[in-house]
């Protein structure tokens, strides 16, 4: 059985960055990618807005991907395309299938860069017919940008996060009519820039506090029933109205795609839907690390690649056994937080905490506390659930920690 110092599962913006950084640290790795090409989901994200931090330029998704892929190829790192991992085992063996056969390899360390999948109609249980014309936004994006086919002439989009907004514009430019966008929350999740340039520019109505309560159309979508929702996000009776469409796009959330992670018995966080990690981005199995959308959902691809960089360093430390024994502290957030990662940190290492909050907050303070002691207070004019936030915790502060570390929101 072939053996590798490091195997990276996933060749998107996280995996490529990790591989590149590892090579710069003189570690040879094997990158395994399921598609026929590298770059991951970026290849279908033809809009721009990527790379401002990492490359100091505004790039389209494919351009960003090409930057990473060019550097990757130039470094001569080993990789397999069309290779689907079917088993990740506790002993760090990996089984995968590709046109050359079924393979089993041994890894000394593993980087999980698995990416995410989209939440489906079946997950959110919209009742109604099940004909053609119902897609997740990413699926429609693939048809349009990769295959050159438009999914409808009169489209409605559920979800006003950035993916939904981007597709509203994309479809309009493809000469489809985007009849409207519905958002179950009383506010849009997307960037203001996208609201302006994807909806307002084209006079596409945004229906807040509204959701789709039924899809009609036997062979193909013919209409949808929309309903207003109350503060508990439950449909308000008698608020229904019908809109005639021939396609519905669902932009209702991304889910880290962790099937092999779970099967390996790695401990998961039900809030992030990714593995629990320490400050080295190491999972509950020593030597298996995770980064990118497969760890938690990001909104800026530059930070996805940055996680890949960080993980590469962690792998290096792990392989060269230069990690010190950590003094572990558990990290958590109060009820305002959906999650805070890493879940466990080392008192002796400065760390960047990343978190998301449940609802938009204005003019609040983020407090870092340990026991009774307030270690740090950060004023924030605005925090949104749609934006992953980061707080750098310096070593001097960590040294003061007695027990656990907790993030709190003070209004």
């Amino acid at each position: 059985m072939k053996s590798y110092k490091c195997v990276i599962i996933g060749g998107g913006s996280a995996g490529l960055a990790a591989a590149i950084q590892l090579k710069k640290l003189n570690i040879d790795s094997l990158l395994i990618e399921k598609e026929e090409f590298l770059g991951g989901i970026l290849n279908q994200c033809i809009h721009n807005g990527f790379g401002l931090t990492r490359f100091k330029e505004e790039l389209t998704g494919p351009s960003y991907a090409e930057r990473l892929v060019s550097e990757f190829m130039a470094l001569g790192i080993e990789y397999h395309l069309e290779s689907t991992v079917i088993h990740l085992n506790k002993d760090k063996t990996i089984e995968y299938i590709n046109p050359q056969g079924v393979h089993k390899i041994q890894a000394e360390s593993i980087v999980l860069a698995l990416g995410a999948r989209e939440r489906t109609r079946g997950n959110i249980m919209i009742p109604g017919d099940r004909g053609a014309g119902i897609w997740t936004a990413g699926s429609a994006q693939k048809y349009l940008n990769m295959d050159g086919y438009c999914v409808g002439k009169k489209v409605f989009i559920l979800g006003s996060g950035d993916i939904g907004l981007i597709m509203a514009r994309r479809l309009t430019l493809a000469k489809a009519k985007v009849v409207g966008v519905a958002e179950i929350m009383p506010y849009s999740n997307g960037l203001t820039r996208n609201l302006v340039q994807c909806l307002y520019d084209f006079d596409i109505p945004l229906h807040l506090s509204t959701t789709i309560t039924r899809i009609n159309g036997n062979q193909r979508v013919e209409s949808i029933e929309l309903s207003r929702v109350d503060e508990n996000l439950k449909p308000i009776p008698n608020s229904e109205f019908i809109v005639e469409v021939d396609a519905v796009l669902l932009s209702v959330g991304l889910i880290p795609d962790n099937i092999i992670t779970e099967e390996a018995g790695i401990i998961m966080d039900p809030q992030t839907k990714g593995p629990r990690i320490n400050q080295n981005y190491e999972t509950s199995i020593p030597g298996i690390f995770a980064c990118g959308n497969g760890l938690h959902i990001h909104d800026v691809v530059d930070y996805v690649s940055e996680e890949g960089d960080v993980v590469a360093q962690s792998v290096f430390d792990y392989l060269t056994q230069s990690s010190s024994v950590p003094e572990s502290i558990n990290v958590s957030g109060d009820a305002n937080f959906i999650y805070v990662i890493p879940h466990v940190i080392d008192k002796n290492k400065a760390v960047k905490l990343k978190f998301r909050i449940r609802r938009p907050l204005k003019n609040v303070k983020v407090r870092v506390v340990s026991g009774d002691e307030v270690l740090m207070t950060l004023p924030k004019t605005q925090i949104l659930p749609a934006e992953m936030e980061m707080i750098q915790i310096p070593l001097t502060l960590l040294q003061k920690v007695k027990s656990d570390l907790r993030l709190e929101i003070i209004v």
Partner: protein
Amino acid sequence: MKHELTCIVCPRGCLIQLVKEGDQYICSGNQCKRGEVYAIQEVTEPRRMLTTTVRIEGSKLKRLPVVTSKAILKEDVFKMIDILEKIVLYAPVQVNDVIVSNILDSGIDIIASRSIKKDA
């Protein structure tokens, strides 16, 4: 003549009011100078970056993503789409290759957003 618009320069999303007085625009609601610059531009000559795809032959990939080299006039967006819809390219293409030069006499090019190899 009064205009109200949301600034997109930073995540704050200030609601800006612009009032034209003579030749000048009086700007309020913004929290920085960039907002004022954006607001005036947006009201006098709104511009957008255009990203779309163009048909390509000679490769496994069927569409080439393209982008404008600079922000184009918002009113020209669909005219450019019409032009790009009619184009058929042939692989190979290099990232940043100019696909259409000086489109609609705008001084702006349509450039390839990625490379596509022949039969790649």
